[in-house]
């Protein structure tokens, strides 16, 4: 049933697709022959660039197309988003320069020496902390994903690549102090139920965080993947709420107002609420439910018959990923994918499944199961309950259609 990749018809078809297709994905002997260097290539015959020729290293120039996916033609770019190129990445950690962006008032340029965090409201001692103060608290590092609540919407899921579809998710190792530690430094009063976090950006973005989350795994973060936060991710200080929707993880954090009630700010009433068919809107929809996507093969790639490792990422805001199932026959049967260790709570988890494509058109899809037993739903299961207008929290399975030509396209488009 499985066609040998070296059998003549398959080989010929692959070769006529040319260099662009070869560069796209598949490797294999045909590509190796075409791109083979001389026995002693030029870069072995003279010394390379000097040590320290880049004082902050950047990727190879041959990787220049691995960049953030910035939507074209938006009405404005002050309050907008750009996506991580998921299909170009391996492992579970997102390079800081490729971490997705969502800003509501642009990216502020903050001098950390002039940045302060104020804690006030229902506390015994309102405090002002410098960045030096904050870095003196006991620190912790944890790997967690961060995902925009609208990744993607429910209507017109027409993107071509994995990044177009769910590129508003990234994952990093975050270092900072537990929010609980800082709140206890100010001393919580018994009636404290919420903490209203405000950013020092031009949106002064404000979200209310329930006290239980603040005292659980919430962090005040100053470093990401070992270096200080990038300005796009909240330099010099941000909130990190593992598993909660991205906009609550307030960047450029400058104020924590401890309150008895939520702020009912614009972001948690008019903006980040989920409209239902009956006209109501769900409010305080914090958690990002279990989700996965195959990143290779994925949209705009082209595959040849023969062996492929199907790989992708899975995550859940409720804890660890228990398993990922993959279908290679459009949903008729599902196979258990291997999970790459470490499998961490509220972090991206890499999955893999070996697969031999027989050259027949089919559809690939993955579905995640998290440690609560929750199974990633289909889009039709979701919209049957929520309609088409809720926009946020679409965690549906993503189908990749594979044509006889090997071209991979969005199964929703």
């Amino acid at each position, binding site marked *: 049933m499985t066609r040998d990749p070296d059998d003549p018809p398959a080989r010929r078809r692959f070769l006529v697709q040319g260099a662009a297709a070869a560069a796209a994905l598949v490797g294999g002997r045909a590509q190796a022959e075409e791109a083979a260097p001389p026995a002693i290539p030029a870069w072995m015959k003279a010394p390379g660039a000097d040590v320290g020729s880049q004082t902050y290293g950047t990727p190879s120039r041959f990787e220049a197309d691995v960049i953030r996916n910035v939507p074209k033609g938006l*009405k404005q770019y002050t309050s907008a988003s750009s996506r991580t190129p998921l299909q170009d990445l391996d492992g579970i950690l997102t390079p800081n320069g490729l971490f997705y962006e969502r800003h509501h008032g642009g990216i502020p340029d903050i001098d950390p020496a002039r940045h302060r965090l104020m804690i*006030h409201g229902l506390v015994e001692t*309102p405090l002002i902390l410098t960045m030096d103060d904050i870095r*003196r608290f006991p620190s912790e590092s944890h790997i967690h994903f961060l995902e925009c609540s609208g990744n993607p919407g429910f209507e017109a899921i027409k993107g071509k690549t994995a990044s177009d579809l769910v590129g508003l998710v990234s994952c990093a190792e975050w270092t900072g102090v537990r929010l609980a530690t800082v709140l206890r430094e100010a001393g919580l009063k018994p009636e404290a139920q919420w903490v209203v976090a*405000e950013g020092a950006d031009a949106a002064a973005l404000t979200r209310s965080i329930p006290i239980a989350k603040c005292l659980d795994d919430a962090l005040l973060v100053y470093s990401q993947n070992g270096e200080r936060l990038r300005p796009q991710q909240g330099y010099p200080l941000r909130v990190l709420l593992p598993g909660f929707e991205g906009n609550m993880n307030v960047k450029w954090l400058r104020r924590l107002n401890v309150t008895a009630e939520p*702020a009912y700010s614009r972001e948690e009433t*008019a903006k980040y609420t989920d409209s239902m068919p009956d006209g109501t809107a769900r409010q305080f929809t914090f*958690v990002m439910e279990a989700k996965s996507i195959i990143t290779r093969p994925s949209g705009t790639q082209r595959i040849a018959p023969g062996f492929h490792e199907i790989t992708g990422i899975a995550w859940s805001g409720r804890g660890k990923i228990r398993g990922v199932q993959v279908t290679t026959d459009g949903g008729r049967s599902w196979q258990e994918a291997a999970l790459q260790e470490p499998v961490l709570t509220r972090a991206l988890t890499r999955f893999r499944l070996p697969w031999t494509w027989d050259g027949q058109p089919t559809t690939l899809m993955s579905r995640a199961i998290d440690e609560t037993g929750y199974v990633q739903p289909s889009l039709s299961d979701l919209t049957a309950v929520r309609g088409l207008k809720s926009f946020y929290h679409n965690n549906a399975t993503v189908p990749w259609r594979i044509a006889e030509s090997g071209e991979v396209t969005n199964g929703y488009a």
Partner: protein
Amino acid sequence: MAMRNARALAAAFLLLGLAGAASAAERYGLGRPATAAEIAAWDIDIDRDGRKLPPGSGSVAQGHAVFEAQCAACHGARGEGGVGDPLVGGQGSLASAKPLKTVGSFWPYAPTLFDYIRRAMPMNAPESLSADEVYAVSAYILNLNGLVPDGAVLDAHALAAVRMPNRDGFVPDPRPDVR
């Protein structure tokens, strides 16, 4: 300095005297107390009941002028939307196939309109409007939505008294809702 010492002393008492509470009350003596004046200058949060709305007032007519100068370029001459979100209309549309979410149709609380305009608008110059201007432009947007009369003048009390049509339109998160 005296306050800081007093705080350190209090922390020491907590650590030494209240052993049972020590794990919850462990403090590191970092930072300094924020003064009432500093908090007042930083804290711009307005809750849904408007209890912290500042002094000042503004009329629909004044708001019309502020809107034309500061808002119309993005939100349209009459709040119909453009580069910025539509602010007007949509009442009765939320349960339809084409819900139009605006201040008039969707926002649940009038005081948080003041909060958002003051903190984030206009987008090119946030926190540049005076309290009077924010009251005025809030009044104008509410008037465009038919929620206050043409002659309305809004202050802290009057803004907090505006009942928004969608006040009861929000429900708690029932997820997991799909299994």
